[in-house]
Each structure stands twice: as structure tokens, then as C-alpha cells.
């Protein structure tokens, strides 16, 4: 009984992901597909040709998007990793208040936050700049980063860092060789989430970038709104593929770093050598 139920749930869940995705995929490869007809009127790659044609704004904005999101992700990680560590390990007055406070961007709508920051950004000359967009993209990622790192540091504690110091590692060495590798799984999951949040950001980019910072979603959304299903679907497919590729690259890089940390001895005394 129970197994049957969980299987049904699993299938429903998968279908709810896969079906819309299939629709988008099919749409992106049609020539046209007027409403009441069941089958598209032929297939083609017009949408992709449009996106990848030389001089297309799409390619340029794709690069802008990747650049902005990667920088925003790095900055957010740079803030939330130490922040999560402090919340996860150390005791200090006002800790429980801060724990709730950093979740604010989840609770308060980004519209409100964006509006609140807008005035300040104008005064600082950050509106209509890529830097401004990067900075505002940090905000929605913070709760996720803090949450994940707080939980991880609550789990791993300070024990290994203490051991590292005792063995002669300075602060930077401790961080690079011990802290970072132990929280790599957290960096991967937090980093992926933060990247996706930034990469798919429309409203905050529009508000702060004012249209002069053209990210990929900024080009994509008008097609969806105007009902150009073919172009919207093609943009979506490119969006998904690029996002996946960047995530994969992030994960691979971090895993490589992790493996390198096993120490040269790990390379020299490889398992094969031990067995032989």
C-alpha cells in the first residue's frame, strides 16, 4: 500500500516537471503551432537560429548574465559562509534574532526590498550599472546560503580547525586546507541555488539595471508576455542548458579542489600501489 502510494506520488511529481519541459522543448522546435490544432505545422530551428545569429543581443546578454550571476554567487558565498559559520558555531548575544533576521529576504517580497534599496542606489550612482545589479542579486541568495552553512557548521563544528591550528596551520591555511574542503558539499548546494536565483532574476535586474543592463531573462520575458511561444520556448531551452552547464562546471571545479586536498601523499600512496 505504502509503496504504491509513494510510487504514484513520485510519478505525479516527475510528470509535473517533465510535461511542461516537454512542451517547451517541442515548442522550441516548431515552425508554428496555432491554437486549436493538435500537432504543430512542421518542425524547424528558427528560434535557435534567431538567438545564435551573429550580432544577436541574446548572445551578448547571455554572457552578461553568466558574468553577473557568477560574481554575485561568489560574493554571496563570501558573505554567507563566514556568516553561517558564526551562527553555526559561536555563541553571542542576539544570535537567535540574527538567525531570523537574515531570513527576511525570504519573507519580505523582493519588490519591497528592491524599492527600499532603489533610492540609496540612485544616490550612490549604482543604478543602471552592472555593479548595482550584481549587488542587488546578492540579497535574495543570502537566506539560502546562511541556512545551508549554519546547518553544516552546526554539524562539523570547530574540531578539525582546532586540530589544524595545533599542527601549525595559520588562519589562511586552515581555511584553505580544512574549512573549505569540509564544507564543499555545502558550497556546491548553496552555490547552485544562489546561482540559479541570480540567473533567473528578472524584477530586481530590471529595477536596478533600468534596462541598460541586459541580462538573458530581460530579453526572454517580453517574448513570454507578448505570446511569442516559439521564441519564448527557444530562449527557455537555451536558458536551461546554459544554467545546467555552469552548475556542472562549478561542481566539477570544486570536486577537483577537494580531491587535490587529499595531500600529495594521497597521490603517492595510491590504492593500487598499496595492493601491489
Amino acid at each position, binding site marked *: 500500500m505504502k509503496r504504491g502510494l509513494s510510487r504514484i506520488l513520485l510519478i505525479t511529481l516527475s510528470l509535473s516537471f517533465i510535461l511542461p519541459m516537454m512542451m517547451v522543448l517541442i515548442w522550441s522546435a516548431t515552425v508554428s503551432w496555432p491554437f486549436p490544432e493538435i500537432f504543430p505545422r512542421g518542425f524547424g530551428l528558427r528560434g535557435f537560429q534567431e538567438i545564435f545569429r551573429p550580432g544577436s543581443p541574446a548572445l551578448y546578454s547571455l554572457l552578461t548574465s553568466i558574468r553577473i550571476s557568477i560574481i554575485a554567487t561568489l560574493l554571496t558565498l563570501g558573505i554567507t559562509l563566514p556568516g553561517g559559520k558564526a551562527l553555526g558555531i559561536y555563541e553571542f548575544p542576539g544570535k537567535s534574532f540574527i538567525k531570523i533576521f537574515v531570513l527576511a529576504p525570504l519573507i519580505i517580497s523582493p519588490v519591497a526590498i528592491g524599492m527600499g534599496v532603489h533610492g540609496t542606489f540612485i544616490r550612490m550612482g549604482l543604478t543602471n550599472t552592472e555593479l548595482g545589479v550584481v549587488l542587488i542579486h546578492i540579497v535574495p541568495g543570502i537566506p539560502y546560503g546562511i541556512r545551508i552553512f549554519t546547518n553544516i557548521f552546526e554539524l562539523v563544528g570547530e574540531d578539525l580547525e582546532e586540530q*589544524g*591550528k*595545533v599542527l*601549525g596551520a595559520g588562519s589562511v591555511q586552515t581555511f584553505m586546507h580544512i574549512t573549505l574542503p569540509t564544507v564543499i558539499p555545502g558550497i556546491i548546494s548553496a552555490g547552485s541555488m544562489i546561482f540559479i536565483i541570480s540567473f533567473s532574476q528578472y524584477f530586481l535586474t530590471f529595477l536596478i539595471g533600468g534596462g541598460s543592463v541586459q541580462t538573458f531573462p530581460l530579453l526572454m520575458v517580453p517574448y513570454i508576455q507578448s505570446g511569442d511561444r516559439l521564441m519564448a520556448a527557444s530562449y527557455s531551452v537555451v536558458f536551461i542548458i546554459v544554467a545546467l552547464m555552469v552548475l556542472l562546471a562549478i561542481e566539477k571545479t570544486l570536486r577537483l579542489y577537494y580531491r587535490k586536498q587529499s595531500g600529495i601523499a594521497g597521490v*603517492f600512496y595510491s590504492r593500487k600501489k598499496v595492493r601491489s
Partner: protein
Amino acid sequence: MTEVKLQNISKIYNGEETVKNLNLKVNKGEMISLLGPSGSGKTTTLKIIAGLVEAEKGRIFIDGKSVDHVPTQKRGAVIVFQDHRLFPHMTVGGNIEFGLRMQRVPKEIRRKKVQEMLKFVGLEAHGGKFPGEISGGQKQRVAIARGLIVSPKVLLLDEPFSSLDQRLKEEMRSFIVDIQRTLKITTILVSHDKEDALVTSSKIGVMFDGELIQYGTPEELYESPKSLEVARFFGEINEVPLIKTEEDVIHTVLGAFRKKGTLQGFEKGSKLLLRPEAVTLSKEGNDYSSDPGIPGKITNRIYAGEKTYYEVEVEGLRIKASVLGRGIWQVEDSVEIRTLEASLIVCRGKEADNTMGAHNEKE
């Protein structure tokens, strides 16, 4: 070789004094133990020496120089923790190599030293494994090897045997004693097992509630403990019930003793203690000794292989006794108790303990 000195060290956690005005000196190349029950501040003391925890009061000297402002990584005091704390993302070899890597020792030398160290601790075959793939005893050896490879000035061992079974424990104990004698590293071992301390150390300090109650050689601690608490820590003991004290004679339930030898130190408020093995039992009416025995009755007998433990009722009081091998007495037997006078231990009572603490403070 290095000398370590702690001077009036105090540490407060959440308003409570976890370490109280601790004074301790470890001579060059010496191995000592800190013994104490759980929560008595032993680990905290080690962390203070290594600089992982900052003391509110007091100073630490390594080789006569104050290290209060020297950060952990430059103190040269290595802690080997009870829970090993191996780096999970590094191989066994990588773990051992870590300290050398931090000192930026060239790769070739690192390789050679790691290999030597692996051999030294008998783990040549395991250098490429990850910590999750070796046994508890092996992890312990990796942790020790990882500490030794940086040639620490001071080695701090935090309950290194507590997670091992009896056989492995004995093996590791002699392993550590061997290393310590060979390398002559100044070592402080922390434990709550009296045997760890007695077997390995030239001096033992007993801690209760953050206070170093007594510090001396194993013989001193076992034979002349300063308090009943300390004596109890080193095994079962009888507090001999006193009847009255005269000018030069102490009258007790177990007979009268003259105030001479060790008993000279007996004063008002003192306690008289007796180890079970210093109580002899003999047949009632036995007259081999001119010294009259005290009649008693066996109320309990526990056979434990190398020893047999008895409880004897004397004038309504229970006295513990033990004999080597299989004791011939059974429950309900009537016996005579005699005391080896030279084995009586005199220690101060509770109030006297406090004055001793005050005395420490002045030092």
C-alpha cells in the same frame, strides 16, 4: 627538550570557574599525567596550553618564555584528541603529512618523512586509505603519527586510550611510553583511568572541579594521598573509624596505633585510611601474633581471578579487605582482622583541604 610551566591559570565558562588557579610544572623531557573525573577541566587545561582557549588569568611558560601572546600554530604544542580528529578528505598519508605541508617542507622530504612515520607506527600498508577505511586503533596511531611528525616541543595527549579495548589499550600504552622515552618529548597525558597514569608517567596530577589537588610521583599519590577523594581515585579504600586520640596513641575500631612513622603527621581532623590489601584476615583464635586481632564476620565475597574481595563486618561497620588468588573465607565465617601498621595512610579532612588550596594560591 622543553619545560612547561603553568602559573595561576584560571578559566571561566558561563560564570563558572572551570580551571581554578592551576599551577603546574613539567620538566624537560618528562611525561606526566593529569587525572580527574569527567568535567574536571582536563581538556580545557590542555587547550589552554596549546592556545586554543584563552585563560582569564595566569600565564604559561614554554622553556621559560611566556607564550601568552603566541598563537596556537606557533606554540609547538600539539594536542592529540580523544576523538582522533583525522581530516576526512585526506588519506592516512595526507593526514600525517599535513603539518609538514603547512611548514612548506619540500615535497621530496615530506614524502620520505611520511613514509618513515608510517613505518614507525606500523601502518605502511595503509598510507593510501582514507580515515573511514581504518580501525579505531589505527586511527589513534595515525593521530599520534600526525602529531609526532612536526617534532612538537610539547605533546598533549587527551585520553588517547579511552576508545580502545583492553588489549589494544595496553599495546598503545607501551607504544606511547616507548616513543616518549626514545624521542624525549615533554608530554602531558590526560585520563580518567588511574592505570593509564600510573603505568606511563613519572608524575601525576589529580584534578577535581578544576582544581589540581595533588601533584607528585605515582608512589606519593598512591601511598600518601592528600585527601580521601584522591585516595579513592586510585582504588578502593577504607576510612578507618576513629574512636579517640590520645597524646601518642590513636584508638580505632581496628585497634590502637602508636603515633610514630607515617602516623606522626596525624593531627586533629585527620583521617586514617587503609587499602583493602593491607588488611589481613586470619582464623579466629589464631595466636601466631602477639598483637590481638579484631573479631569480625565475612559478609560478602567477590572472586575476581587474581584477587578475591571481601567485606568484613566489625562492630557493625563494613571493612573492605582483599587477598591474592582464591580466598579461603566464605560468607558467614568468623575471622580476625589485623592491620599492617606501616600501610596506614594519614590524610587531611575536608576543612584542611581548603587551607591547602589557599596555600597553593600564594605560591
